[in-house]
């Protein structure tokens, strides 16, 4: 009995009042992930836009989305409104929208204008976690990755509020993936909280558990930062991300013989 209580208390240190995602106080607010955009001569970013509200109920007037773009340090640089069409797919070229005047990476969020009645009735929030795709080096195929953080909300005044929780203690996120020596990687981290986060990325040998490298990053609220892992002869490795983010789940770009594979942890 006492052992069980001690176990529960040990876990509570990591969970009590430390939510992964805070709950907005208004059921009319939409939630979006913070997606990463990449825009350069080598990178194009796309997003699959679907009129999610009209999947739930008939549309009385066209729904729209507000896309908010931030640069790598989380500063809002652009907002766009787009009308949606019911039950069709709209693939939008995000890099064409943002252009190449705001750096090569940043984040964006997609907020739906209408929240279906059933969603509010169930005390839920419509969450745009949709699908981003990247085209690298004029590849004929795009590589997809879906959002997985319910990161931000937009209030009627057009203000962004970050929903990510913060950890009291530094915690480690261990990417359950083997980084191979022959490949190059770019590890992307996004900050969905309202505080600046200092993040340490460690590469650890899977052979002898030695720390091969340790890199520190700072990510502003709403911003994104990338860490490069270049090919070497040090054998397979694992990646450990230490921070006060509740779950520092990275976006991983893997380059094997210049071909891209992208996924999130």
């Amino acid at each position, binding site marked *: 009995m006492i052992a069980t209580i001690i176990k529960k208390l040990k876990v509570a240190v990591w969970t009590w009042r430390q939510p992964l995602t805070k709950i907005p106080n208004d059921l009319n607010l939409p939630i979006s992930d913070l997606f990463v955009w990449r825009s350069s001569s080598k990178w194009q970013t796309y997003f699959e836009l679907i009129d999610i509200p009209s999947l739930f109920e008939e549309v009385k007037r066209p729904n729209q989305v507000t896309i908010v773009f931030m640069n790598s340090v989380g500063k809002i640089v652009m907002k766009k409104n787009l009308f949606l069409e019911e039950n069709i797919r709209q693939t939008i070229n995000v890099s064409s929208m943002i252009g190449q005047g705001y750096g090569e990476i940043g984040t964006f969020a997609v907020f739906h204008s209408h929240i279906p009645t059933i969603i509010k009735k169930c005390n839920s929030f419509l969450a745009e976690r949709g699908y981003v795709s990247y085209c690298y080096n004029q590849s004929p195929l795009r590589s997809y990755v879906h959002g997985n953080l319910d990161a931000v909300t937009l209030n009627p005044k057009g203000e962004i509020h970050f929903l990510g929780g913060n950890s009291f203690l530094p915690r*480690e996120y261990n990417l359950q993936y083997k980084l191979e020596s022959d490949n190059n990687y770019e590890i992307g981290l996004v900050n969905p909280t309202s505080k600046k986060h200092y993040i340490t990325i460690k590469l650890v040998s899977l052979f002898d558990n030695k720390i091969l490298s340790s890199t520190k990053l700072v990510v502003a609220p709403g911003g994104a930062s990338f860490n490069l892992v270049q090919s070497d002869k040090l054998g397979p490795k694992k990646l450990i991300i230490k921070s006060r983010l509740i779950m520092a789940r990275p976006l991983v770009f893997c380059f094997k013989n210049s071909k891209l594979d992208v996924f999130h942890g």
Partner: protein
Amino acid sequence: MNRLGGSGLLLARFNLYMSYYPILKFRKYNGWVTLCNFAPNNWEIDKPHDLVINLTWAFDNVWVSKSLGVLPVGKAITITHNDLPDDIPGDVLLLLSLTVTPLPSHSKALPKTEFIQTKIPVWRSTLGVSTPLNVCASYQGELDAFPSQGTLLTFGPFLQFGEGIQNGLIFLNLEDSPVNRESKLEIYNAANENLIEIVSISNNKANYIELDRFGFKPNDLPVFICREMAGIPIYVSSTADGSYLSLEHTHPPASLVVHGQRWEIQKYLKKQWFAKLIK
């Protein structure tokens, strides 16, 4: 001011059943799985263990399991079809798992063995596919048994277009029972609700369906439903020569919302669309 979601004492999920990690295989492409014996965080697992690597498949109405060895604490291993014993039957869904003790060699229900599962995030493996040119695509995932009364509703905005590009859907199902059963996957166009085709699918299988023959256009939103079986839809696009590959899976409709009664919303959405889409 935001309320704190999920406050209170959220417990790590001690002693819940472990997940499975399927080795995918379709067309000329080979699947692989990277299993990791290190937890995805440093705070949910007290005592790590060396773990047994199990391979499980359904054959002749039973689940058969074999041990492939032990994965020590802190290590990772990538397993492909080439690493497997020769006596595995062809055309079965191969499932890897990590457990503290070996799974029973035969069982009438999908083996469930105690495993210290994590929650933030869930314990995953890397599930990947490679073309004959060794071009890879992967995702972090796991596979748990679906209830046999489960259903599927998914919208798939992943088809890619261009010369030589091929698109397919893998409908991945796993159930407790090893007994084979068939069902029907209905394919529609969301815009006009037209039925495009009905395709037979099986349980405990990675069912591969070529999508290019259905004539979808870039702005079409395909809808896939199954009224008697649930599964994970995985979309695959590749160039004909296998020099490029893309892989992504969709989530259940409950993922369109967060907080609150998400599963009620999923029920609602399925009911809406199952009523709208008539065979």
